[in-house]
C-alpha cells in the first residue's frame, strides 16, 4: 500500500550531500573566506615569530595544522543552524529515510567544502615554511585523513549547540578540546617525517580514529538533532 519506498541510507546520504554541495556552490563566498582565513593566518606566523628558516621548518607542520583546524571550525556553526532555522531539519527527521544517512551526507558535504580545499592548499603553505617534499606530502596525507574527523567531531558538537544561547562560543568550548588528538597525531605525522622517522604510526591512529568516528559520530549527531527538535 505504501506509495513511498521505505528509504535507504544511501538515498538519504546522496540527497543531503548533493543539496549541501549545491548550496555551497551557490555561495562560494563562504568557502573562499575560509580559504583566505587559512592562508592569512598561516602567513601571519612567520611575521610573528620571525622568518628564521630553521624555526619555520620546525613549527611549519604544527602551525599549518592549527590554521587548518581553526579554518575548518569557522564553517561549523552554520552546518546545521541554517537547516534548523528554516525547518529543513524537521523535514529530514520526518522523512522515511534513516536519519544517519542524511546527517552523514551533510558531514561529507562539509568536508568537501572545507577539508578538501584546505588539504589541497596545504602544500603551498608548506612551501612558505620551507618544508621538503616528503614532509609536504605527509602533511597533506595527514590533513586528508584528519579533516574528515574534524568534520565528524565538529558536526556532533554543532548539533549539540543547536538553539543554545551563545552557540558560537559554546561550540568552540566543546569542539576544540575534542580536536586535540587529531591535531597531535596530524602534526605528529608531518614532524616525524621531517625528522627522518616513520609517520605511519600517526597516520594509522588518524585512520583508526576516522573509522571509529565515521561509525559513531553521525549517530551521536542524530541523537543531538533529535534532542534539538524535541
Amino acid at each position, binding site marked *: 500500500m*505504501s*506509495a*513511498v*519506498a*521505505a*528509504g535507504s541510507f544511501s538515498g538519504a546520504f546522496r*540527497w543531503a550531500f548533493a*543539496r549541501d554541495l*549545491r*548550496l555551497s556552490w*551557490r*555561495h562560494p563566498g563562504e568557502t573562499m573566506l575560509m580559504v583566505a582565513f587559512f592562508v592569512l593566518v598561516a602567513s601571519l606566523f612567520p611575521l610573528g615569530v620571525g622568518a628564521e628558516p630553521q624555526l619555520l621548518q620546525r613549527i611549519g607542520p604544527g602551525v599549518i595544522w592549527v590554521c587548518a583546524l581553526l579554518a575548518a571550525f569557522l564553517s561549523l556553526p552554520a552546518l546545521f543552524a*541554517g*537547516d534548523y*532555522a*528554516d*525547518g*529543513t531539519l*524537521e*523535514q*529530514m*527527521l*520526518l*522523512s*522515511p*529515510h534513516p536519519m544517519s544517512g542524511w546527517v552523514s551526507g551533510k558531514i561529507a558535504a562539509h568536508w568537501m567544502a572545507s577539508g578538501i580545499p584546505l588539504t589541497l592548499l596545504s602544500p603551498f603553505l608548506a612551501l612558505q615554511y620551507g618544508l621538503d617534499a616528503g614532509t609536504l606530502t605527509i602533511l597533506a596525507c595527514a590533513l586528508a585523513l584528519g579533516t574528515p574527523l574534524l568534520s565528524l567531531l565538529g558536526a556532533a558538537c554543532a548539533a549539540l549547540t543547536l538553539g543554545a544561547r551563545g552557540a558560537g562560543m559554546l561550540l568552540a568550548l566543546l569542539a576544540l578540546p575534542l580536536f586535540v588528538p587529531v591535531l597531535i597525531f596530524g602534526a605528529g605525522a608531518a614532524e616525524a617525517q621531517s625528522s627522518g622517522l616513520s609517520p605511519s604510526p600517526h597516520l594509522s591512529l588518524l585512520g583508526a580514529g576516522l573509522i571509529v568516528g565515521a561509525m559513531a559520530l553521525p549517530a551521536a549527531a542524530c541523537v543531538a538533532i533529535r534532542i534539538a*527538535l*524535541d
Partner: protein
Amino acid sequence: MNALEARGLACSRGGIPLFRDVSFALTSGEWIAVRGQNGSGKTTLLRCASGLTRFDAGEVLWNGQDAGTGPIAFRAQLLYAGHAAGIKDDLTAMENLRDALALRAGAPTNEALRGALAQVGLDRHRHLPARRLSAGQRRRIGLARLALDPAMLWVLDEPLTALDDAGQTIFSDLLQRHLARGGLALVATHHEVAPAPARELRLVP
C-alpha cells in the same frame, strides 16, 4: 482505509503543562481542525502527533500501531509542514520543490514539477531564487508540494498564513482532492476552510 488516533496525550514544555488528556480519531476522507488561542499548544500537539516532540503521557496510533515504534511505515505516509517550510533562499522555487519531494517520495519529473507550480500560480517565478519571492509565494511552494506528495496523512500548522484569497482557494481545492482520494489531515488554523472539518479540536490552556 487509514486511521490516525491519539489517546490521552499530555505534554509540558519547560516545566509548564500545555495540555492534558487530548484524544482524537481520524479516518480516511476526514480532516480535523485544531483550534485554540495563541500559546494554547496547537503547534506542540501537531509535533507530538507527527513524532517530533516527546509527550509525557498517551499514545499516537497509525492504523492501530504505535506510530513511535514503527516510524518508517508511519513517516512514509506523513507530510508535516510546520511554520518554517524548509525552503532554502538560495535555491529556486523549482529546486526547492524538487528537493522537498525527493527527500520523501522520490524524484518527480520536471513536467510534474512545472505543472504543480503552475497550479499554485508560480509558473513565471519558478527559476527565481526563493529569497526574491514574497512570503505568500513561498507558502505557495508548500502548496505545490501538497499537490505532488503522495502521503496520505497531512499534518499542517497554519497553512493559510500569508496566503491571499486565491491562495486560500487553491488550498481548499487541494484539501478537497486529498480527502476525496482517501487522505487524512490534521490542520491547525484560525481560518474557516471549505470543506468543513469532520471535527474541531479545541485546546484550552
